[in-house]
């Protein structure tokens, strides 16, 4: 049976989502997307310029990908809502990654404003994917607000620090029935694989690919790592043990009577 990620009425075979910021040229994006196998690509509406075809980032996203505009630059729910509506009006579809950041020092998301924006946009028929700090209660609120998935950060955006929030994400995966997509902080394919082995539904990567010396090769590596991690998760990895299992066990003399 094929392993599909069902999201927003779509069935996805790839569990790697890609960001489009920070590239040395938009022209590299089609090759990066192709190498990674990604089917969902996020783009900041602030960078979309429909009047300038050659420099418009959307022109470089393969047509068979799902475009997921994000609300980068929004400082509160109201701005995120306006950006989402502008994105839909500009023909960017009805998926939206909500990103509300009111802290320019660490770029950490504002969970409370994110919940508010999710409530409004989900009610308007958007497929809402909120970017959050990992918090179980916030994830529950997002779920009841109509989010299609929850996207907790592994580490601050662009930090390449890996799965610093692993334990909190693990709890979210266990407790929330929505897909949990690890977004931000993943710096290496091995960390993406680790997130997938844990049971994350997908991961979103941008900086690690865009700023690699060879973004196309790195995109391919991430695609393979995500697939490997997912396969391992489905294979049911055997439990990790704290101690080696003694070959001469102390209780080996006991026999069933």
């Amino acid at each position, binding site marked *: 049976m094929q392993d599909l990620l069902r999201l927003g009425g779509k069935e996805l075979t790839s569990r790697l989502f890609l960001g489009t910021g920070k*590239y*040395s040229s938009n022209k590299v994006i089609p090759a990066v997307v192709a190498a990674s196998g990604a089917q969902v690509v996020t783009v900041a509406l602030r960078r*979309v*310029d429909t009047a300038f075809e050659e420099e418009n980032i959307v022109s470089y996203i393969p047509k068979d990908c799902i475009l997921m505009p994000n609300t980068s630059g929004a400082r509160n729910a109201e701005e995120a809502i306006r950006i989402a509506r*502008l994105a839909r009006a500009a023909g960017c579809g009805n998926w939206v990654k909500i990103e509300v950041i009111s*802290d320019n020092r660490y770029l950490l998301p504002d969970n409370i404003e994110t919940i508010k924006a999710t409530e409004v946009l989900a009610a308007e028929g958007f497929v809402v994917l909120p970017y959050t700090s990992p918090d179980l209660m916030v994830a529950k609120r997002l779920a009841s607000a109509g989010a299609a998935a929850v996207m907790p950060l592994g580490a601050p955006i662009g930090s390449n620090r890996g799965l610093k929030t692993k334990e909190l994400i693990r709890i979210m995966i266990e407790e929330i029935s929505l897909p949990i997509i690890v977004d931000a902080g993943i710096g290496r394919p091995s960390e993406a694989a680790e997130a997938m082995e844990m049971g994350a539904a997908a991961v979103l990567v941008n900086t690690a690919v*865009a700023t690699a010396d060879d973004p196309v090769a790195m995109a391919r590596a991430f695609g393979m790592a995500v697939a490997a991690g997912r396969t391992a998760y489905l294979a049911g990895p055997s439990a990790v043990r704290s101690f080696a299992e003694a070959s001469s066990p102390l209780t080996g003399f006991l026999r069933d009577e």
Partner: protein
Amino acid sequence: MSFYAEIAKLRTFDFEAFFERVGEKDVAAALAKDRLNYLDYLTLLSPAAALHLETIAQKAHQVTIRQFGRTMLLFTPLYLANYCVNQCVYCGFQVHNRLARKRLSLAEVEAEAKVIAQTGLKHILVLTGESRTDSPVAYIRDCVEVLKQYFTSVSIEVYPLETEEYVELASAGVDGLTIYQETYDETAYAELHPAGPKRNYRFRLDAPERGCQAGLRTVSVGALLGLSEWRRDAFFTGLHADYLQRRYPDVEISISPPRMRPHLGGYQPRYQVTDKDLVQYVLAFRLFMPRSGITLSTRESAVLRDHMVKLGITKMSAGVSTSVGGHTQGETVGQFQISDERSVADIARMLYNQGYQPIYKDWQAL
């Protein structure tokens, strides 16, 4: 609160003694940190750190790529008017200089906007001299109403305003504020501004904070290098940016390190600031505030600008005229002579050749 209180705390700080104490070990220790405090920043601004510029550059380059990617935001200034009541001894537009004074009509603003917009730019910075009679806030607001039809981000670099005036311009569509303190040295400031409203050091110093309080998205500060000892002005610029970013975390705080350029009036800068000094300043600031934008203007030469693409800069002006109506009516006397006269397309080509993406649009007016 005011940044003035922060400056006051450092009034007795002995910069010379600090710089004498700083050695190679201190520079290495500052470089090894993820988060620099203000003394680490001063350490990287020290003469001792100047001996390790390449090491600092490598780290600053990596930090910039991680935060901003291989991208460069492009914008251009648009001079609306050159009427000015101030007597800044270093400025071509000061009241005593004889030049044709002009203020663009709204039709002329639109004509300039059309020409600039054809280059693909979406970020515009509007400038005026200081004259509440000839270029009042209401006039600036009317210009913004015209410009926002052509640009998705409109910033202002005008005389310091009251908070309510910044609010008024923000509601008209302004999202960014640039205002330079010129020099943070209060004594030098008084000498350089012998008359006019600009003599008020504190009113200007607090203007960026009023802009933050008014809800603007981006606020840029800086000192005009050459007016005073550069290391101190670089230090206080960084402290000012840090002060604002801590208090207004939702505002993007950035800096610019403008250097004195030749201009009508011929003031000779008292302090020399070499290319090496400028680079050291930009690198040290990048490591002190990894997330902050740094703008490099066409005051600098094409050669230097090309090299500084990889040295922490995130924003460049392109296709620049510093005279009123310079895009449609031919160049007249500008505020200062620009050094890099390349067009937007030329700059974009240069960036692509260096493996950098020119960004024309990085904000969507809401």
